[in-house]
């Protein structure tokens, strides 16, 4: 590692140390109290004190298991069909190392980027990021141009081609709009985990961890701090909210 790189890392470490001290409040000798996120009242909006994120451990993800996909479809009222005109908010992807033949299976969904390209390119402001980092489509202003679908490096977005009926009252969807994973925003706002994470836990795989990345005490933050993880296409510097382990 070059000297300049080393000094950069040193700087970063120093910065992290200082900010940790600033973020924590000393309650007594040797006791640090970090601001713990409270469950918020309905009239309180999403806050930038939180950043929802996910850590997916591909080594725990079951080969051939698609419970997360099924749970997502049920929660959000998707048909589960996988044709070119069907909506898929989360999908299982198999990746193979061509040199060794090692195959891995992982769920791919909207990565809820900090610098989301879909938000950048949207001509109407319909594609938007909430204060807590959840990327959504405002269907009231979506004109269905599909620029965001082209901009997304993860192929995470779908377009609704046909009229829909009997939607889930909590998940309005309709023809002519682009849509994608919302981290089950309706569940997160009432304090539940996204449907896919819940399904993965129920199955016993526990490959998906969901939580507040800004809360140092959250399970996901602790896991991220204690082990290595990567962003998919980290070269694009989108700072995704979803990170992977084991790929």
């Amino acid at each position, binding site marked *: 590692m070059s000297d300049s790189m080393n000094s950069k890392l040193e700087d970063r470490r120093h910065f992290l140390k200082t900010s940790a001290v600033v973020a924590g409040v000393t309650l007594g000798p040797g006791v640090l109290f970090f601001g713990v996120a409270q469950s918020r*009242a309905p009239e309180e909006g999403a806050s930038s004190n939180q950043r929802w994120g996910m850590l997916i451990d591909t080594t725990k993800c079951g080969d051939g298991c698609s419970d997360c996909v099924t749970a997502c479809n049920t929660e959000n009222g998707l048909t589960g069909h996988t044709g070119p005109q069907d909506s898929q908010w989360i999908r299982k992807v198999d990746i193979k190392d061509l040199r060794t033949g090692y195959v891995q299976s992982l769920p791919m969904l909207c990565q809820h980027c900090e610098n989301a390209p879909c938000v950048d390119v949207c001509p109407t402001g319909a594609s938007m990021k909430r204060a807590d980092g959840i990327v959504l489509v405002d269907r009231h202003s979506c004109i269905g141009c599909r620029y965001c679908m082209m901009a997304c490096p993860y192929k995470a977005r779908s377009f609704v081609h046909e009229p829909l009926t009997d939607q889930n009252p909590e998940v309005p969807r309709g023809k002519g709009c682009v849509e994608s994973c919302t981290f089950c925003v309706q569940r997160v*706002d*009432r*304090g539940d985990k996204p449907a896919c994470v819940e399904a993965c836990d129920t199955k016993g795989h526990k490959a998906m961890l969901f939580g507040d990345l800004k809360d140092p005490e*959250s399970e996901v933050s602790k896991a991220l701090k204690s082990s290595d993880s990567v962003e998919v296409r980290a070269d694009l510097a989108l700072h995704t909210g979803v990170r992977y382990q084991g790929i």
Partner: protein
Amino acid sequence: MARLASYLRAGLRLAVLLGVTALMAAPSFEAAAGVELPKLEKGKGEKCVEDTAFMRRNHMELLKHHRNETLRQGIRTTKHSLKACVECHASGKTGSVASSKEDFCVACHSYAGAKPDCWDCHATKPGKHSVRQAAQPAVSPLMPSSGGRQ
């Protein structure tokens, strides 16, 4: 001169004809003015969140304001939420606010000739998560409510 007289006679005939037509048409105009107001089913709640006359003119503004707050800011109050409207006003017969011409939203919109596209995306029937339930602040398993036990 003879030509002028014939023109006048023709004009007179036309005027009489128009007059008779107008007389015949008059009762139907009266009938149009007397179209009955839509008969709306009473909501399930005790009373509406706002005064009825105010709601009649302004419900769309309230809904628009609320939708922006909910979607963009994550504010999930229930007073002016569409879900709350649907829960209270869903018809006893169809269970919906917009599946038959007598249902709450459609009855009035068809009378007023308004064609909003809310129901292209939004459900017209109440869901399993009632807004009354949602109004109570949930204790979150994601967000521990006390820092002391960490």
